[in-house]
């Protein structure tokens, strides 16, 4: 069965690489926000100030990192599921000998792998820039923690987005719901700015929510460096969230497909 999902991932990867417009959009999506944020925060923190404990160098790396994590992790499975449910494309998946959630997960892996391949040259340049300018000191251990965090955030993101997309089983149009969700999640995940910039009570709230693991936590792992115990504790919480989301995925799948059958056939 694993071979099947690898093939789905391969098809997804090939589809991205075969489509020139999606390659251009992908590069622009990754580059433009990073460059804008780089310029903006370079100006704001020009005099050696810090914000939320971040120095200029750290915040520049934070933004570059967040945008790259965005490219690798944040696959819009919610939008895709919404489209597939309402267009009836889901029927094409239901009658195949595959599990729906695994199908979308395999698609995500292929899609993200395409991102990784396309952005690799830029990544290498960015990494060399950081190394040559001595902007960041990271141990091998931190790099491993960072890599693990990115993989876990991709899984958590997928499970969360899948649940959100499944709401389309119950509602006619999720367009505005998904737009609002993007803004709220981006904010709570630390995509717009580091969560530490928020008032302390809001920081406490965001630390109790799963969204920080989508981008803030992996990039904090790289930039700030946690003790192994602290990183392990956070990762354990992330895994618990993943388990909760996984159970929710099973429930929405079962109830959603029943609902699909009742009203959307």
């Amino acid at each position, binding site marked *: 069965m694993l071979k*099947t999902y690898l*093939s*789905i991932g391969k098809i997804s990867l090939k*589809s991205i690489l075969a489509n020139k417009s999606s390659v251009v959009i992908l590069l622009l999506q990754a580059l433009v926000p990073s460059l804008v944020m780089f310029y903006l925060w370079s100006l704001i923190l020009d005099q050696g100030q810090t914000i939320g404990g971040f120095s200029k160098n750290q915040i520049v790396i934070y933004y570059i990192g967040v945008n790259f994590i965005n490219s690798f992790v944040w696959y819009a499975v919610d939008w895709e599921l919404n489209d597939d449910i309402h267009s009836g494309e889901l029927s094409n998946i239901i*009658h*195949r000998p595959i599990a729906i959630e695994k199908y979308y997960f395999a698609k995500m892996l292929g899609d993200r792998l395409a991102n990784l391949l396309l952005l690799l040259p830029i990544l290498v340049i960015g990494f060399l820039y950081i190394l040559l300018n001595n902007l960041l000191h990271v141990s091998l251990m931190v790099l491993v923690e960072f890599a693990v965090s990115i993989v876990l955030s991709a899984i958590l993101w997928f499970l969360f987005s899948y649940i959100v997309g499944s709401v389309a089983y119950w509602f006619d149009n999720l367009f505005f719901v998904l737009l609002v969700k993007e803004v709220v999640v981006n904010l709570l995940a630390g995509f717009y700015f580091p969560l530490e910039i928020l008032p302390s009570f809001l920081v406490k709230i965001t630390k109790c929510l799963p969204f920080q693991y989508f981008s803030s936590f992996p990039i904090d792992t790289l930039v700030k460096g946690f003790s192994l115990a602290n990183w392990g504790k956070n990762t354990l919480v992330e895994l618990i969230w993943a388990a909760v989301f996984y159970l929710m995925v099973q429930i929405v799948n079962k109830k959603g497909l029943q609902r699909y*059958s009742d009203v959307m*056939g």
Partner: protein
Amino acid sequence: MGKNAIEVHNLSKEYVINSRGENWAAVAKNIFKPQKSVVKAVQSLNFEIKSGEKVGFIGKNGAGKTTTIKMLTGTLFPSSGYCKVNGYNPVERTNDFKKSISVVMGNRSQLFPDLTPRDYLELLQTMYDIPESVFAKTVANLARILNVTEKLDLQTRKLSLGERMKIEFLAGVATRPKVLFLDEPTIGLDVIAKRDIRKFLVSLNKEENLTVFLTSHDMEDIASICDHLIIVDRGKIIWDGQKQELLNKFSNNKYISFIKSESFNETNIKAKIIDQDDVTTTIKVPAQKVDHVIAQLAQNNQGTDYQINDLKLEDIILELFAEEN
């Protein structure tokens, strides 16, 4: 032929529909208290299809054809009753069941537009766990029959509608299903593509004993492919039997078409008028009275250019619907 490929017992499907309301007040009220109504798409269907049969499932728009196919393929759950396909209950959606069927829908492509048909076929080969060499041989053979060998490595979006549809067929049967469900498979295709696909299905049925379950509004599809007809109207079966049986039932009647004369008067026509416009009229008469009726019409100067036709399958189905109403 022998054992049943499909068994359907009291199969019903009801949809819950939210009504929107006619004005803004009704729309607003509907947000808080939705007005729901139930549509009976399929009502207590009962039929059996033997393995290797080619079945035409016929009905008007909204008759419940696609809903029935979706229940038989496990996409929709029945509201009541049950069905078995290849011995499986589709509701359970087991992989063994899914591997034993194939679905081709004329209005919904399953191909990947950015990739080649071969990419899609390779995915199916893995998905359905078919040995690579066997699959390659099957695909090569089917592609040759359907005349699409040179299209397999072109980007799908660059293929014509007919070529894409042929690839859908190829993909549908390359996975070696026992039952092939076809929903309006020739919609929008030209006569050559239709002919190729019909020939392909008939030969495949003969060679592989493939059970074909076909819905189509194109009666040529039905007439040239199917031997067993199930006709539904408003979710109920109004005919279930062999095609020849149905043709025989109406073989005692003929249609006479003629150009109306200036003195044409409808009240003078002592037969059932099937169709008429400003110029022509078609009437139905018992076969043994054809000569007599034409003689009378001519004598009464009702028309000219008389043409006698057997009832085509399309006419017979219209007759059946008329009888039902």
